[in-house]
């Protein structure tokens, strides 16, 4: 009885909060369906008179190359960052060695650096490697910028894994990489999923590097394209908001896909109340 009440009340709170959370998104969607005239009236919460689905077609036309590029770049860079980061997180949490604290400290500090200030050296590095305007170049830079964060998150989750697991594996003659792949990753799957989601949105929503390191539309990610939709001396909020709805689809797919792994972690999570 008490349990029922709790679920009811907590459910109510969550749903109410969700409704509040949806209001800006509602403003986003209504604006994306308006005409430019209606947007100019600045009644953000009033629904459109006649939904303009053509906004979405226009936005999609402009965004499609960027969407392709972003899918390739973001998925690759996220994958590489999480692999590099989780390997490092594993080594940092599993083995005691000299300078461990120092290395950890160095890793954490760099995550605080606002990358805008090092835009010039970043461009120099890619020019030196002859990787400007390539997928590989952007993947490399995004990996460099996000792997430290992935290390931090995954490492934190790994520290909850009982050391006995590794001792047992070691006695069975298991190699470290196999332990990492077969035991550690499955056991801390929720942690890996969290890290993946966070790294993914960081890279996907990045905007400045995508312009500075590309030439023409061939490899440019989608966020610069989205920013272009509004215009500088013209204000097409309606098209830009339609574009925002379109670009949000890819992260949502990723969230749904990763959400499945969230629930099916191998380690028995505690059950439903």
């Amino acid at each position, binding site marked *: 009885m008490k349990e029922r009440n*709790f*679920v009811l009340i*907590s459910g109510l709170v*969550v749903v109410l*909060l*969700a409704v509040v*959370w949806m209001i*800006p*998104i509602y*403003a*986003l969607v209504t604006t994306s369906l308006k005409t430019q005239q209606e947007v100019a009236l600045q009644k*953000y*919460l009033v629904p459109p008179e006649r939904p303009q689905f053509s906004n979405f077609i226009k936005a999609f036309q402009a965004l499609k190359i960027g969407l392709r590029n972003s899918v390739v770049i973001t998925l690759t860079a996220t994958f590489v960052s999480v692999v*590099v980061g989780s*390997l*490092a997180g594993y*080594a*940092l949490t*599993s083995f005691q060695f000299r300078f*461990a*604290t120092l*290395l*950890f*400290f160095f*890793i954490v*500090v*760099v995550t*605080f*650096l*606002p990358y*805008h*200030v090092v835009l010039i*050296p970043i461009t120099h590095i890619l020019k030196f490697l002859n990787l400007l305007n390539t997928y590989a170049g952007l993947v490399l830079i995004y990996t460099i910028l996000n792997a430290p964060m992935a290390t*931090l*998150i995954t*490492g*934190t*989750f790994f*520290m*909850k894994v*009982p050391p006995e697991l590794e001792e047992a594996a070691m006695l069975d003659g298991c190699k470290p990489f196999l332990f*990492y792949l077969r035991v550690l990753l499955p056991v801390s799957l*929720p*942690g890996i*999923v*969290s890290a993946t989601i*966070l790294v993914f949105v960081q890279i996907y929503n990045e*905007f400045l590097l995508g312009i500075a390191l590309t030439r023409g539309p061939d490899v440019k990610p989608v*966020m610069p394209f*989205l*920013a272009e939709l509004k215009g500088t001396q013209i204000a097409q*909020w309606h098209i830009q*908001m339609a574009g925002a709805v379109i670009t949000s689809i890819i*992260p*949502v797919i990723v*969230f749904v896909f990763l959400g499945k792994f969230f629930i099916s972690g191998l*380690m028995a*999570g*505690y059950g439903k*109340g």
Partner: protein
Amino acid sequence: MRYYRTQGLLFLIPIVIIIGIFYGMIVWDFVVAFTGWQGLQATWKFVGGYHFIRLFSSTRFWVNIGNNLRWLVFFIVPTVLVGFILAYFLHNLGRGEKILWQIFLFPMALSFIITGVLWAWMYDPSSGLINSLLRAIGVNTSQLGWIALPSSAIYCMIIAGFWQYLGFALVIYLGAIKGIPYEMVEAAKVDGASHFTVLFRVIFPNVGHATLICTTMLAITTVKVFDLVWVMTRGGPGVSTEVLPYLMYRLTFDSRDIGMGAATSIVILALSAIMVIPYSLWALKKWVRV
């Protein structure tokens, strides 16, 4: 045993290379901070601590520091707390969890270019959400300017940040709660513990790692918060909502005073390092398993 360990340590190589590149860039930044680079062409003229003296003696810098502190306090605490409770609620809900989870996560799928504008619209004094609601219940809103007023603008922006990053805390706590052994919670419930007790006495101590990572990541976000400021107010009215990374961007690219911008970023890094030192000493003691 020894062999195993050596092999394991090899996994650090990629991150060490990455960190190496990072520190190469930071050294570059550091050097620039001590040169008189103004305008678009690099001038490697040593000016000593001139930029830092100029920075510390400007009132604008201290306004920025104050704003960064406001972000630290008023952004992190609510986000972590609400994210934690929400994760517990969601986890207990069973049906609907997956959809509701997506709703809270959705703001993270949007670029700051968009969320900043959406929130500027929400705060619009004449037709935005908040004043519309207040007017509906009969409040006189003619003086409520929200982001138009220097006194309230920063808090309005923090709420927008809260909206955007709650999903972040939620994801991490949900991941952590799902990793807690079933028996532990059941045992407490059999003993007749209330949900409040379970939440704060059983679960909270067991998701310490999540709290740690949440706080750190959100601290990083506040120290780097730039996007929202840039889109919502450009630091205005006046410089009332400016934060250090925004100041850095302005100095570098608007004032074209690269040396000053670099000096600001060094200050950001130094402040972060001060925050990070005790944390990394403490965390690593807990971290190492074997």
